[in-house]
């Protein structure tokens, strides 16, 4: 559970000479039961960690694909509490890999920061990601996460100065989320130019914390290339695009995650 489980997942991937694979799925998309089956399928397909999207009406950092998934899930009545229940059900059904809840700050604030951390932990989640809560504003949540053995992931962006990379690295627990491009989430054909140097720059400050690249990672080639210099990759929009509107989203998600595992 918690930080140890996250560290173990990265250690295992590293021992196998490959990046940890962390697919993302929006809870409640296309509906609650289907999203639970997708989470189970991601675990069965060999995901090392799973990022659970907590839908928000105004997801600033997200492109059209995740926006759409959020929107559909909210239209069908998903709530923060229902998201936690889905995570708990996933755990009960045998999903063992670390799970991190990715949700924006306002639903968290409405829920209550301390209770938000406590209840996610109780649901069996191992860490939190809040993309619009910079380290400067995360003091309360940091303490709550620490109290419940939850990781609190921090971000770096291509615009980050050395000082901000240091800030993110010193506050991050679990891993450092490296946003690969200046832009919102969404599949991209090519990896960002200079990505390797940027990741290595972050690594220099990471103090051994895993660095994970997200935004635009869409293909097995991307996973392979990024795996040469990062500890993990996050695949979100490409997976949602591939599986979200498939006849059987769980089967499609399973198959997509398998194709990303170039090491198989």
């Amino acid at each position, binding site marked *: 559970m918690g930080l140890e489980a996250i560290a173990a997942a990265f250690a295992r991937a590293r021992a196998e000479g490959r990046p940890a694979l962390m697919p993302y799925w929006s809870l409640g998309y296309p509906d609650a039961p289907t999203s639970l089956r997708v989470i189970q399928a991601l675990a069965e397909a060999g995901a090392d960690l799973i990022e659970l999207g907590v839908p*928000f*009406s*105004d*997801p*600033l*950092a997200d*492109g*059209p694909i995740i*926006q759409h998934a959020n*929107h559909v899930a*909210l239209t069908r009545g998903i*709530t*923060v*509490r229902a998201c936690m229940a889905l995570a708990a059900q996933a755990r009960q059904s045998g999903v063992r890999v670390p799970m991190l809840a990715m949700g*924006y*700050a*306002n*639903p*968290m*604030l*409405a*829920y209550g920061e301390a209770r938000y951390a406590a209840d996610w932990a109780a649901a069996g989640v191992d860490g939190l990601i809040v*993309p*619009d*809560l*910079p380290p*400067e*504003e995360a003091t309360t949540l940091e303490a709550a996460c620490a109290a419940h053995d939850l990781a609190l992931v*921090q*971000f*770096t*962006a*291509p*615009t*980050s*100065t050395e000082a*901000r990379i240091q800030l*993110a690295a010193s506050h991050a627990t679990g891993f450092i989320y490296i*946003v690969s491009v*200046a*832009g*919102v989430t969404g599949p991209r054909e090519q990896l960002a130019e200079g990505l390797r140097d940027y990741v290595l720059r972050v690594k220099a400050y990471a103090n051994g914390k895993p660095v994970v690249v997200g935004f635009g990672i869409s293909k097995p080639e991307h996973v392979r290339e990024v795996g040469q210099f990062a500890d993990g990759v996050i695949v979100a929009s490409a997976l949602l695009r591939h599986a979200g509107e498939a006849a059987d989203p769980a089967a499609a998600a399973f198959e997509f995650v398998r194709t990303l595992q170039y090491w198989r």
Partner: protein
Amino acid sequence: MVALSRTTQTPTPDAAGKFGAYGGRFVPETLMPVLDELAEAYEELRDDATFRAEYEHLLHTYVGRPSPITHARRLSEHLGGAQIYLKREDLLHTGAHKINNALGQVLLAKRMGKRRVIAETGAGQHGVATATACALLGLPCVVYMGAVDMQRQQPNVFRMRLLGAEVRAVESGTRTLKDAVNEAIRDWVAHPHDTYYVIGSALGPHPYPTICRDFQSVIGREARAQMLAQVGRLPDQVIACVGGGSNAIGIFYGFLNDERVRLVGVEAGGRGIESGEHAARFAESAHPQVAGRVGIFQGMKTVVLQNADGQIANTHSISAGLDYAGVGPEHVYLREIGRAEYTYATDEEALQAFNLLCRLEGIIPALESAHAVAEAIRRAPTLPRDQILLVNLSGRGDKDLNTVMPLLEEENNGVG
């Protein structure tokens, strides 16, 4: 010389950009360094004599400042109580106070060496103002506008295009103002180095609420001096409508240190608070889907209309400019410390005020401004004749004729 610099008595945000507990920066990491850069550039330029002179020159020779103050004699007589004065921001170039901020920020963009300007717009007034400033200063301009708003405000879409701006329809979310802000921020995240984002109100992540307030505070400084020169004394109350709250903060700032002057903000009551169809963030509400609570929205901590689960509420107002879920953070602070009070006017009350001002004063107000007029109409009869209410008439109503025509014709037919 227009003083953009701080005065000693007025509150400025702290180092984290907070007014009390509100404001700050809640944005994806990509924008954090960009906001630092903006804050630094602005700190430098706000006290730069050349920059201030250039801005002031344009306000005088292009925007049409100072805007006059009009004594609304017939309206005051009709109400039989306090005297109502109007600060005439409706007479400015492009027809509203928005140009004060847009011009200042585009000037700032130019001084920062940015090559491209983006903006969001709801009713289209801020979009038109930004497109105008960009035409004047020679910068390309992209305006994000909700697809629903584009339908409702076609003349302003055409105006922006005439001025050389590219208007991009926003199809996400509710396809209105808040989604246009989201889309503009997403554009900015993707072009952080070459693009300047002109936010249209005293909203968003630090330093925007401060920048917008400073550029709009010219309204209050002028109004204070004009009241003293023309009437010989300060008003008893200053009344302004509050969407994001830029015209209100602009006029309030002139009187902030005059403790005897009451500052009154008027939000959009829409179809009534109980209906849940409004944009009155400060109104008491037990509605499960729409209640104003402290939250984090579009880069700031502020009071925002939301449901119990923290999802941002859909708002409603007859005036597109007030139809927004969040309020500028400094208003939350002014309310909390008791310096300003906030109330609301419904669609119906705003329409009646609109009608009355047309008939009694020959002024067609923007529907936004009509909310402030409605509050003055409510208060004036209860006050003695020597009291003075100063209303910020933030814009003119030509843009609203399509909205108003069917409603008022219906009403007139009904009344007979």
